[in-house]
């Protein structure tokens, strides 16, 4: 399949997704900041897109190529003409290469192919598709190399009604602004922000089933049941739990303990062009009957993004709580990293499209974020209860430079208020299609 063919098919698929009110994932993976604003506008012009889609379907149905069934479609007992004509497999990919140079410890500077992702979407018919992503982190994965290979997404989505889809499999959780939209051109800064990595784990996915409803008033509602976290693998002797409490106990559907499940939901409103306002909630058991005490992880967030003119403004607040931590921590006392009772963080970010020429676009930005991965601990008694961690504040100042649609060069500096040894310069190259 040639790249032009892929792109053409992608655009058709994009329009189809919007028209039937389906998932945003594919649309998001094919766009970046600029396209994201256009998508918001397109959402507001849903009726016009529907009309265009209908016209395209009619045109394709009359071409000889479209009438030729695909291999998969031919296997169907009685494929509907329209379904056969829409069968399409689309390749997608994104990647990022980052360079980090600590100000005070240049000997620790690192360059890393942070992630390289290949994905495909295959549409079985007009209503049903599979979406997958396979990721390699840190270039090389072997028993003696630091890399990791992971399936980030693998789900089936079926359109039940024009405004209602059901999604099942391994999917990204609808939380914050970044998790479902994590391709490098889609966010500012070389590294993903801390709130959406340390508080909301990134990239956070669970196995389960969810309903996705898109309504003409710009409202998208998602909800379902999924696998949950695993507190029984909390490593109190390690520091990972202090860096990202939920990141250290996520299961990623890898032989995931599944006695305890979670429920989740998210609401996003795009009723005004350029504006997105939303919130999410996740709550699930996390001890799976394997600890003396049952515990529940709850995570919620509120987020907003507004893109008036050349501005791109966004903010996220996220907060997580873990119940019954006193009982769980009683078996871990004295270790350096006990399970926090609560953790939270927020950021505000402003970017401005300063200069454009053709596809070139330069967008400086600044982001201020404050987060605390151990904001409180349950009382264990004097001398044993850990102190809450200090709230970290990070200011990131930099710019994204769009070289072409889907390709971005980034540079920024980060200053940490608490851990100033982490102050650093970051450079990055990213792409997505």
């Amino acid at each position, binding site marked *: 399949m040639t790249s032009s063919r892929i792109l053409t098919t992608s655009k058709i698929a994009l329009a189809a997704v919007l028209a039937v009110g389906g998932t945003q994932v594919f649309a998001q993976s094919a766009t970046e900041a600029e396209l994201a604003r256009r998508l918001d506008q397109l959402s507001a012009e849903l009726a016009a897109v529907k009309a265009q889609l209908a016209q395209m379907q009619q045109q394709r149905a009359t071409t000889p190529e479209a009438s030729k069934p695909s291999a998969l479609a031919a296997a169907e007992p009685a494929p509907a003409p329209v379904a056969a004509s829409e069968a399409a497999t689309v390749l997608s990919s994104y990647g990022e290469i980052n360079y980090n140079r600590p100000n005070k410890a240049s000997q620790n500077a690192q360059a890393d192919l942070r992630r390289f992702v290949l994905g495909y979407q295959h549409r079985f018919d007009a209503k049903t598709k599979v979406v997958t992503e396979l990721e390699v982190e840190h270039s090389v994965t072997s028993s003696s190399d630091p890399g990791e290979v992971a399936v980030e997404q693998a789900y089936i989505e079926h359109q039940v009604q024009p405004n209602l889809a059901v999604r099942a499999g391994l999917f990204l959780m609808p939380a914050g602004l970044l998790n479902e939209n994590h391709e490098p051109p889609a966010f500012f800064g070389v590294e993903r922000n801390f709130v959406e990595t340390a508080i909301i784990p990134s990239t956070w996915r669970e196995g389960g089933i969810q309903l996705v409803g898109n309504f003409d008033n710009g409202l998208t509602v998602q909800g379902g049941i999924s696998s949950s976290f695993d507190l029984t693998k909390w490593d109190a*002797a390690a520091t990972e739990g202090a860096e990202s409490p939920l990141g250290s106990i996520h299961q990623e559907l890898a032989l995931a303990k599944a006695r305890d499940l979670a429920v989740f939901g998210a609401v996003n409103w795009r009723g005004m062009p350029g504006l997105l306002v939303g919130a999410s909630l996740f709550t699930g058991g996390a001890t799976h009957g*394997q*600890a003396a005490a049952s515990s529940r992880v709850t995570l919620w967030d509120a987020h907003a993004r507004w893109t008036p003119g050349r501005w791109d403004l966004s903010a996220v607040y996220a907060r997580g709580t873990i119940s019954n931590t006193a009982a769980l921590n009683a078996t871990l*006392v*004295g*270790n350096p990293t006990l399970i926090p009772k609560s953790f939270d963080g927020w950021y505000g970010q402003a970017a401005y499209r300063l200069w454009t020429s053709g596809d070139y676009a330069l967008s400086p930005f600044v982001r201020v974020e404050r987060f605390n991965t151990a904001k409180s601990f349950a009382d264990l008694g004097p*001398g044993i209860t850990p102190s809450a961690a200090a709230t970290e504040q990070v200011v990131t100042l930099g710019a994204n430079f769009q070289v072409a649609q889907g390709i971005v060069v980034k540079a920024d500096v980060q200053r940490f208020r608490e851990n100033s040894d982490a102050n650093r310069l970051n450079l990055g190259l990213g792409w997505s299609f």
Partner: protein
Amino acid sequence: MVRRLSIGLSVLLSALVLSACGGGTAVSDVDTASTMTPLSAQASLGEKIFNDTSISASGRQSCATCHVANSGHAADNDLPAQMGGAGLELQGKRSSPSIRYLATNSAFHFAADGTPTGGFFWDGRTSSLQDQAGRPFTNPVEMANISASEVVDRLSHAAYADEFKRLFGADIFTRQEDAFSRMTLALQQFQREDTIFHAFSSKYDEFLRGKASLSDQELRGFALFNNPAKGNCAACHPSAKNSDGSHALFTDFSYDNLGIPRNPDLLQNADPTSFDLGLCAREGGDMASRGDLCGAFKVPSLRNVALRKVFFHNGRFKSLKDALTFYVQRDTNPEKFYPLNADGTVKKFDDLPTQYHANVNTTEVPYNRRPGDAPALSDTEIDDVIAFLQTLNDGYKR
């Protein structure tokens, strides 16, 4: 059976080794409840062999002689090493360790980061419970049989000889090598099947199950045990429940060199040129080229450690209090544990040749101190840790 399954049946559990080590993954037993199921015929036979003194040259020593159930299957006395030989007149070379919680130990190997790990006995020289179980029978300072043939001959006259033949064939005693192998297999099976060897029935286990509470002192001691800036015991004796729900064995099966003081009560130490170098000098000589491992001994489990009456490979200390005090004051007050040189200086690490002093762990808590520094644990804190260690005894009754 063996007079000292000690040197023999040794492997882990006896002494206390608080220091930090490598590795870190606690091998664990999934059998977290002491459910009583009948022993198989093979295990039942193994139990008989385990308690049979007739297979020793002295006729007075069995496996159970040095591995007493009421002492957590370690020795029940404070001898630095148990007595063996044809007349029980010979002293062993190392203390008799507990043989509980060994079912999931592995053969000796180097972990990915180079940490020596696993194996049975204090120096990891055997690769399985079965292999380990056979050694004391022919050890001259233990059960002191001259050969495996002599062991099998004694076995063929045991009260359970017919049972042995029913299980392994009427002609089994004519095949001496096979008979010896079947005997050690039965011993291994006994240790694997009888839940007393992996009961997970301590107060700490009940605490993990949410069925018991630790007292304030025990909880303080537990915190000090885990705290990497205080006891740092958990660095080598992991305490946390594993992610599969199994309970920790309180050993990472690694090795460490603690610079234990020489024990004058060991007869072999009458010769000032004699040193027990542990891992690098073990039988077979496979580690002979690893001078950096000289002085390293296996990290034992701390389960039932409070039942022990001597600690460390040479039985140098006879109370938990003394053992823990050594850990935290070895470097702050070395004069308490080592003799003085003629010039009044402390002859530190006196149970190792000078060239191996650099092998001693001096970098990790609680050893990273100097004379004049405060010990990592105060006297009161040591008492707290001991209170916690006492919760690791099997057979807790509410």
